């Protein structure tokens, strides 16, 4: 098969914007990936916080000071929003995996539920903790 194009094929996001029109289902799908991967920042901050707490009061003061600063608060609050979004979107995937909810109207309604639900859950969490 010497005529087969190897290694010169287009990679995934090439069609965005040019040939592909965004819609609710695709936006909520890509948001799942973005939020899931972005949470590594908060995860590393939390790991730093745990290691610092186990090390010394001085180390803890540094880690805790950063995480509870205005910038740390912003990162953690956005991560919380991302976490709840990813949480709901994950539940949506588990539901889809059972073969249910795949009709376009249902999928779009579930997408809106993820978007609205994540904001509501974030506000509730910030109120409780």
């Amino acid at each position, binding site marked *: 098969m010497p005529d087969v194009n190897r290694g010169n094929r287009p990679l*995934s996001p090439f069609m965005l914007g040019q040939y592909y029109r965004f819609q609710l289902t695709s936006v909520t799908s890509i948001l799942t990936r973005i939020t899931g991967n972005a949470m590594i920042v908060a*995860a590393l901050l*939390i790991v730093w916080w*745990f*290691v610092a707490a186990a090390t010394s009061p001085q180390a803890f003061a540094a880690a805790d000071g950063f995480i509870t600063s205005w910038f740390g608060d912003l990162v953690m609050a956005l991560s919380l929003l991302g*976490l709840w979004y990813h949480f709901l979107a994950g539940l949506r995937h588990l539901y889809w995996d059972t073969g249910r909810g795949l009709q376009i109207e249902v999928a779009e309604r579930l997408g809106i539920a993820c978007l609205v639900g994540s904001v509501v859950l974030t506000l509730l969490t910030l109120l409780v903790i």
Partner: protein
Amino acid sequence: MAFLTDRKRAVGLGSAKKGTGHFWNMTVSSAALAILVPLFVFTFGRILGAPYEEVVAYYGRPFPAVVAALTLVVGLVHFKNGAQVMIEDYTGGLTRKALIVAVICLSYAAMAAGLFGLVRLAL
């Protein structure tokens, strides 16, 4: 002039037959995280911002410590597998391999560091 048969050239270019295992791993870890994440958010969220002595005492207790340890381990395995799929989708060749290796190493390093901290706090 090709000396290999068409069949021979096609062998090995298909799927690696590992996709279902990866998918199942994501399903199991997401189901576990659906329970762990709310528990972690409300245990960790409650103590974040508290003074040093309170934090040390809080994570000396079994429930918050075990929830944090499980969330770290399952969460980072879930991240490792999810990030790998993203890398496979958007990159190719050596970049793809290097990024996958980096993500796996980062995930296990963060897991080990977090567990060390938790164990030391608990003991």
